[in-house]
């Protein structure tokens, strides 16, 4: 009475993860959480603008020298940039592959259609694309200054004020931050489910946490252009 035993060799861990929809979602969750952690720090740093040019520019300078003398000048910043770039790419590639798969899995639409899922859930894909485009604009605007005529490297306070003096630039930033809030609201909670952290009893906690993160980040980021627009920061 011998039982059949499995002796076949299983694929390696990276292969298993990459070949599976659940694995790809895990990549999305982890990269998303990395970006989220970065955003919290980014937003916190931005708020230093309310303490004047000295504090803000000083903080920007510190970001370049942090970790010295172990790390060289700007190395810490570059490490973060590389990790973030990798996270964005991983997030986007898996999202693209999964979306294509999802469309193929539902080739025929229902004749009787209903809008049912929440706005945040429905806008994850296009919202993500908008955020990707925004990141490009944001880097060209306030990191390299390519699209900002009067950009002076090393003077972030003046650059931020100059950038937000353009009303259309304020619109771009505020719309992008609203999109970010929606993305995080569904994204954070989803990541918790994907990583298996959620449960019936913890569901409320994760939903509240997702709403809180979305709200705090959106308000925190939007505060800067609004402050410049209203003349609070000048």
């Amino acid at each position, binding site marked *: *009475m011998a*039982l*059949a035993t*499995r002796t076949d060799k*299983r694929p*390696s*861990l990276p292969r*298993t*993860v990459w*070949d*599976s*929809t*659940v*694995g*790809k*979602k*895990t990549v999305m969750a982890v990269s998303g959480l990395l970006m989220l952690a970065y955003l919290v720090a980014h937003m916190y740093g931005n708020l230093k603008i309310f303490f004047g040019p000295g504090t803000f520019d000083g903080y920007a300078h510190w970001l370049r020298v942090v970790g010295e003398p172990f790390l060289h000048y700007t190395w810490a910043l570059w490490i973060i940039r590389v990790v973030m770039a990798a996270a964005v790419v991983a997030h986007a590639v898996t999202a693209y592959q*999964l979306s294509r*798969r*999802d469309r*193929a*899995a*539902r*080739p*025929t*639409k*229902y*004749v*009787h*259609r*209903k809008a*049912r*899922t929440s706005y945040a*859930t429905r806008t*994850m894909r296009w919202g993500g694309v908008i955020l990707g485009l925004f990141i490009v604009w944001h880097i060209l605007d306030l990191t390299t200054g390519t699209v900002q005529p009067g950009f002076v490297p090393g003077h972030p306070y003046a650059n931020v004020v100059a950038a937000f003096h353009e009303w259309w630039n304020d619109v771009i930033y505020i719309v992008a931050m609203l999109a970010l809030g929606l993305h995080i609201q*569904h994204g954070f*909670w*989803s990541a*918790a*489910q*994907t*990583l*298996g*952290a*959620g*449960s*019936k009893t913890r*569901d409320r906690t994760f939903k509240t946490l997702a709403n809180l993160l979305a709200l705090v980040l959106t308000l925190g980021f939007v505060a800067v252009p609004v402050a410049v627009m209203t003349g609070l920061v000048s």
Partner: protein
Amino acid sequence: MRLTLRIWRQANADAEGAMTTYEIDGITEDMSFLEMLDALNEKLILAGDTPVAFDHDCREGICGACGVVINGDAHGPERTTTCQLHMRHFEDGDTIDVEPWRAGAFPVVKDLVVDRSAFDRIIGSGGYVTAPTGAAPEAHATAVPKPAADSAFEHAECIGCGACVAACPNGAAMLFTSAKVNHLNVLPQGAPERETRVLDMVARMDEEGFGGCTLAGECATACPKGIPLTSITSMNREWLRATRKAGR
């Protein structure tokens, strides 16, 4: 009641289908949705037309054979199976749209009948317990903790009707697969195959062409048996655990 039905008619898997309109009278509110379709079919047969093909078997909400999309909702407006849905949930003069489950992995066979054998293949890949056959084991030989028994029972309620796939905007079978994985993985009897089960069933689910989960939650809303969305979370946890173990 007098109703206007718009039903998906498709002669076979390769034929072009279309929504076809029928008028029907004499429907009482105590009829089930399937009895209403029976009444329509009687009329069609007497008129020399081909009756509407739809799946059904037990008609008491336990087999999972029935299932159509009614006005955009899998199994219609109530949280129950199509066979257990009664016409009292509709109004006289209503127009009702009836469509088959729509998913790449569930091709239409005829009219409202779809091929759901992809589910059987997911079960075949690990939704069982390998045990030597023989006399039934002594009931007290394996102690099952109460929470595990409750959880297993909750997941075992899945009747495999496919409403989760039909409702999912991505045509994903995550709720079905998770119900089947969790049902056995929480029990001591399922423990020896705990890792291979979740890995193989998820892999099979992907191979069958089901979509991925975006946690839209449509599946859990449509499920006539109330399998919770967190069932998917539990399966993800099992999958990650098994992947880590297999990687060692």
